[in-house]
């Protein structure tokens, strides 16, 4: 009898809990829909289970505020509807702060077409062992303008923890990204500053990419400085088909097919395959059909970084890693340039013209090699370790 009572009590507790959660979800969503410009929307302390994306659209001057990262926890582990955890669209001056968000089916927080956006003191993570079935991005502003991401933590994304796409005027600072495929990724984005962050135990620490076929064709004017980028040796668990699936485990910083990027004063250590790679889009071996797309990196300046001492062992679990091992064994130089150049950008001596230079200078332990690869593949080139043509400042 006693047991029956206890059992029924537990069932009753559970039913009450679920009903309360559903009611709470509805209240929060209603509040977001009916919010008036200037509202502060407080999320209560406690673990809140959500079944559907929380969405905010076409509002101005809204703050969505939790009670603290360790107090307000939004969990989407039983999500049945919508792909994102939180989705914010067509808005202006939005602040998201002081909460933890977990385990959505797709991206955790996606913001699109928002002008003036702050992510502050947010933990965005997939719990458990990092896996391909985790969503793509933890924090995902796309087509946004004036974005500040500060003191946020991103864990477990099967693509990028902090991913800024097709945006302009972006600050990413004092964030931690770990156990993601890419820790922090700046893609087809202009005027981004990434400083004082920690990217460790990802497959790749910080990536700056321009990809083809997008509306915002060209990123660039990106500064990456004063970051700690270490031990990014996590296995690549991206679902196949995604471009980051090609990033070899053990990548510190990778610059792909973009322009005007300055990487300086970072501490980049114990990334076993390559500490800093400067690559063209050709290394992806994907076809390029976008006629307006520029697949070559240009105006890249790598200086005053501190690289770790000692030998490292490139991964064999990626084609790129294997090639590096094949060419260099355990002595992979810290800074690798694929050397694939736009024929229109070189002078009569075969050097890049002033407007398109790649400069590498004053890096502690910063060994360098130009793979002098070919559009047809990384295997073809004859390596040059001569830093001479690249010893310049921008």
């Amino acid at each position: 009898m006693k047991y029956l009572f206890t059992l029924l009590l537990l069932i009753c507790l559970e039913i009450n809990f679920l009903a309360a959660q559903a009611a709470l979800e509805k209240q929060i969503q209603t509040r977001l829909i009916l919010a008036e410009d200037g509202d502060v929307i407080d999320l209560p302390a406690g673990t809140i289970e959500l079944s559907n994306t929380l969405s905010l659209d076409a509002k101005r001057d809204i703050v969505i505020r939790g009670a603290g990262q360790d107090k307000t926890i939004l969990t989407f582990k039983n999500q049945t509807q919508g792909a994102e955890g939180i989705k914010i669209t067509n808005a202006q001056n939005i602040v998201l702060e002081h909460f933890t968000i977990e385990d959505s089916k797709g991206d955790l927080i996606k913001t699109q077409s928002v002008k003036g956006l702050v992510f502050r003191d947010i933990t965005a993570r997939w719990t458990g062992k990092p896996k391909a079935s985790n969503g793509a991005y933890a924090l995902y502003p796309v087509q946004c303008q004036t974005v500040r991401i500060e003191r946020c933590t991103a864990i477990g994304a099967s693509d990028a923890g902090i991913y800024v796409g097709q945006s302009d005027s972006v600050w990413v600072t004092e964030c931690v990204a770990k156990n993601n495929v890419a820790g922090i990724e700046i893609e087809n984005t202009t005027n981004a500053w990434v400083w004082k962050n920690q990217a460790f135990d990802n497959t790749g620490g910080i990536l700056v990419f321009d990809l083809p076929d997008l509306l915002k064709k060209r990123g660039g004017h990106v500064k990456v400085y004063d970051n700690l980028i270490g031990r990014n040796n996590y296995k690549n668990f991206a679902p196949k088909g995604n471009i980051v699936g090609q990033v070899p485990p053990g990548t510190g910083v990778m610059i792909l097919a973009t322009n005007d990027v300055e990487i300086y004063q970072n501490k980049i250590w114990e990334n076993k395959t390559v500490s800093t790679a400067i690559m063209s889009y050709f290394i992806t071996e994907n076809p390029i059909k976008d006629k307006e797309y520029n697949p070559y990196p240009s105006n890249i300046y790598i200086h005053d970084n501190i690289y770790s001492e000692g030998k490292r062992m490139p991964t064999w679990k990626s084609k790129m890693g294997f090639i590096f091992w094949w060419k260099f064994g355990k002595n992979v130089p810290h800074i690798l340039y694929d050397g694939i150049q736009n024929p229109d950008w070189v002078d009569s001596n075969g050097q890049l013209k002033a407007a398109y230079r790649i400069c590498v200078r004053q890096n502690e332990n910063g060994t360098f090699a130009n793979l002098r690869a070919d559009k047809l593949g990384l295997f073809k080139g004859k390596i040059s370790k001569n830093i001479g043509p690249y010893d310049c400042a921008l």
Partner: protein
Amino acid sequence: MTAHYKIFGLLGIVCLLMGAAHPVQQENNVLNSVTEVPTRQMEAGLKQNLSEYAFFIGPLANLLAASNVFPYEVNAPLFSDYAEKARFIYLPAGTKMQYHADASFDYPEGAVIIKNFFYWNNAAQPELGRRIIETRLLLKDAKGWKALEYVWNTDQTDAILEVAGGATPVSWHMANGKQQRIDYTIPNLNQCKGCHSYDGKFTPIGTTTKQLNLDLPGGENQLLLFQKRGILDLPEGFDPVQAAHLADYRKPGNTDAAARAYLDSNCAHCHNPNGPASTSGMFLNVEENNPEHLGIGKPPVAAGRGSGKRKFGIVPGKPAESILLFRMEDNDPGIRMPEIGRQLMHEEGVALIKNWIREMK
């Protein structure tokens, strides 16, 4: 026996107490302004019941159009978990829609587009009746369009305003005899705009020339009929054969035309250069002719596990290697396309797109 009663009685009281106490406590936390919500709705002058609009005469569930309410059909409907739709346009007396050859028609202030979602109890025998689940309204006011959502009561006597959406269990027999059962999802108002968005602004989707240019049963062209009724001015010399029209993908015909019509109505509301999925670079509107933007040989941008380990949007001749098909076939919320409005795979749609890719060279 008495002991049982006591225990259950006590338990019942405990349950009630907790049930009552729990949400209240949460409400106080989350919404110091919970009482404001209804007030704000009232302030906005929103009607709480569908019946208040008087769009229909007689019993509401018969959906018999009142004057100034005009039924319409579309060439290529959006798949919504096999729900049937009854569509109407309300125009204030004496007003007209304004024709556009290649965009949504313009509407006068006060116009309302009305879409009722229902299931036949048995799709093979409509005479056995239907259950109307929801009615979605798009209202045009001075500021532009806005969406409202009304959910039908179980008696089918009226539908009540719902802001935050929800889910309701529905079961029915499909035309092929199969019993279906789903938790039908009613979108919240933001989700409406998830699709009804052009350059970030609220916009109707279905009332375009390409969707409305069709011959009604009986042979009359729908747009010419609208003109005859005085609710649309067509340009001089308008020729329905020359004007844009999507194929009715439900009827046998040219696979390419049917597939492009299907993708246009089921994907292109987001996947167009001005829509919410412009971020992806994949544009599936029927006007798009760049193979790369259609997904042919195009690697994914931000698909994540939505790529299904496949490399390209479309691989001609190889549906099993095309991401497009993978996302149409999967029902996981993080993978499926469209993202909202579909829980079940659309078997006929998948078969069509599969054929289209297979035949593609």
